[in-house]
């Protein structure tokens, strides 16, 4: 049995952390940001911007990466990975907005960027892109809701709108993933030269691509373990090749940029920045590249999970270095996040996990694991006594892009799910 039952200790802990964060948020709204954070006039952006916002957006990149693979490159066999990626993407952006509600001085004015324009501001562009892309994700995510409610006429309409929607989503993602790097182009004197570069937008975009695919992998492995699902291992191994390629390009550009700017010597200096730069390079770049390059490791679930986790760790490290540690020296300030800042960040992560669990239990997120075409090399995690995967059946046209099936969860009464699936099937047949 797994740790995600409704009343499991893990879930109780998540609720506890989320409620703790809520309490800190209340304190922030009563007494100001100074009462909960160690931010200061000399160090106005800290953990929240660095992790909750910059890492949040980067780690949610799986949504647009997978959408591009499935709907633009038409590599349809990756479809089973798409919907979980869109769910995490959508959740990720919602969490970023929640983080902004705490971090912004006047959160109720967040809509100002829509009507009070400053096209010269990178933040203005990011605000627009994030808002529009969250809308795109909501529409893509809305398909699961429509399938659940069995509204097939609307569902067909969304299928018609999907290709242009995906193109728009990829453009918006390219823009704001890179622009989060452009935000720091205005601080040439403040950001440490190991990170400050006119190539920041390119580097942010490339690393977002890589971490998007890595997050999809991490999520697939984690949910396979948590929900006792079978793992789409051959698919993930192929995705690992993609991660390898993008990561290799990223690492090459990153190193070439540091060398070309003549600051490579700083990487071997006995400073905190140099150590963090090397950690970024080895943990998030070279180590996962080595792991992914070996076919035997790439085709094993633990190997893939380790490599993908390292990519995620490397990108988190990079974003925190750009926002926090790389900015410290020039600011003349001391900044270590307060425990309340950490609790808010942890609460946002906990809220995301709880929301994800709820969605997975109530909406058709996971497609069928094994199709007739796909090789059935799937692992069945320990503790799950071989519940048979339902046989995949070709559906009458119109075929939904994500064929529905009953979620394989012990909590959901099997009868209810089957009834639901039947009603959806009936609806599809009638249409």
């Amino acid at each position, binding site marked *: 049995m797994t740790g995600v039952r409704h009343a499991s200790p893990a879930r109780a802990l998540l609720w506890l952390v989320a409620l703790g964060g809520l309490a800190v948020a209340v304190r922030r709204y009563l007494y100001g940001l100074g009462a909960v954070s160690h931010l200061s*006039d000399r160090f106005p952006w800290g953990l929240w911007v660095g992790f909750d916002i910059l890492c949040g957006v980067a780690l949610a990149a799986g949504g647009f990466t997978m959408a591009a693979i499935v709907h633009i490159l038409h590599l349809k066999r990756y479809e089973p990975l798409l919907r979980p990626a869109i769910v995490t993407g959508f959740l990720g952006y919602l969490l970023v907005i929640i983080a902004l509600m705490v971090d*912004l*001085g006047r959160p109720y*004015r967040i809509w100002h960027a829509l009507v009070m324009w400053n096209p010269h501001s990178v933040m203005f562009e990011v605000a627009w892109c994030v808002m529009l892309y969250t809308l795109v994700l909501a529409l893509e995510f809305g398909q699961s809701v429509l399938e659940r409610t069995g509204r097939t006429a609307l569902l067909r309409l969304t299928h018609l709108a999907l290709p242009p929607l995906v193109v728009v989503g990829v453009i918006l993602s390219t823009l704001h993933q890179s622009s989060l790097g452009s935000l720091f182009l205005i*601080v040439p*004197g403040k950001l440490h030269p190991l990170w400050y570069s*006119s190539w920041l937008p390119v580097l942010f975009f490339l690393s977002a691509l890589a971490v998007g695919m890595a997050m999809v992998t991490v999520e697939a492995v984690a949910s396979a373990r948590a929900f006792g699902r079978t793992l789409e291992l051959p698919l993930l191994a192929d995705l690992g090749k993609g991660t390898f390629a993008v990561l290799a390009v990223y690492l090459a550009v990153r190193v070439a940029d540091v060398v070309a700017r003549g600051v490579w010597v700083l990487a071997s200096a006995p400073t905190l920045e140099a150590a963090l730069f090397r950690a970024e390079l080895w943990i998030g770049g070279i180590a996962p590249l080595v792991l992914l390059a070996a076919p035997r490791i790439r085709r094993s679930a633990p190997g893939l999970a380790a490599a993908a986790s390292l990519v995620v760790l490397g990108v988190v490290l990079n974003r925190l270095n750009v926002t926090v540690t790389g900015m410290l020296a020039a600011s003349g300030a001391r900044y270590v996040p307060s425990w309340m800042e950490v609790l808010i960040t942890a609460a946002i992560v906990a809220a995301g996990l709880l929301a994800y669990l709820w969605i997975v239990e109530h909406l058709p997120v996971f497609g069928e694991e094994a199709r007739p075409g796909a090789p059935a090399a799937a692992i069945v995690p320990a503790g799950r006594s071989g519940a048979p995967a339902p046989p995949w059946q070709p559906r009458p*046209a119109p075929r939904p892009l994500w064929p529905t099936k009953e979620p394989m969860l012990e909590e959901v009464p099997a009868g209810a799910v089957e009834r639901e699936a039947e009603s959806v099937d009936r609806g599809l047949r009638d249409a």
Partner: protein
Amino acid sequence: MRLTRRQFLQVLGAGSLGVAYLSAARPAAAGRLPPSAILIDIARCIGCRSCEAACKDVHGFPPGESSDLGVRAWTYVRVQRISRPVPHLTLGEASAMQRTYKVQCMHCVEPACASACPVAALRKTPSGPVTYDAGRCIGCRYCMLACPFQVPRFDWQSPLPIIAKCDLCAERLARGERPACVAACPAEALTFGPRPAMLAEAARRIAERPGRYVRAIYGQDEAGGTSVLYVSDVPFEDLGLPAVVREPLPAYTWRALGKVPAVIVGLGAMLSALEAFSRRRRRPEREGGSPARPRGVQP
């Protein structure tokens, strides 16, 4: 009938051209006035803090000496120990080891804060001041990050905080008065006027006393030029004034931001083409040779 309509249109056209000319001419005439600037002569400053007191008085802030900029301290007089003794112009040997000088918003000619602000709460006015509209501010603090002089302050103790910084007494300027701090200075360390004139005055002082003044004007090129200028008899780095790039900071982000329209068009075309291409290429092999329609019309 036809003729009169043409005549009517001609009159209308001439009239609207005239209106357009007049309305275009007025801001152009206003724009020709050079922006104002404050020239701060650190050699003359005696550290009396009259400027600081006047600023707090005018803005209704609590009186007293400040040791840093703050939400209720838009300017203050910094007391700076210096590494090499230089006798003070008026205070002599007693003040050889320290200098005092006024610190405030530099009112950049091309301000990083104004370019960074997503809601255009911070703006460069043609007459010089960089003003702040608290009613627009969302409190994102990107201006604080962007400012190379670390000037904008944030009300960390307020539940709904806003940004605070010197506005160069924009309201007084509009009435034709000088900024309160300049008007209060008893030592003639502060001079106010058009920026070109202030640069000329700074150059004149340096040229007249070459042995006394450092041969540089802080703010002439810093961050692309500022509307607060310093001349000094002690090197600026010794005074703790930050070394700032010469290029206007908005240019750094604009180099990336300016490519956005091209990225939208280029990427849009590329992705659409790629989508169409791979759909055509993939379908036959996927559907086992039967080119099924995407939305599957069943016979």
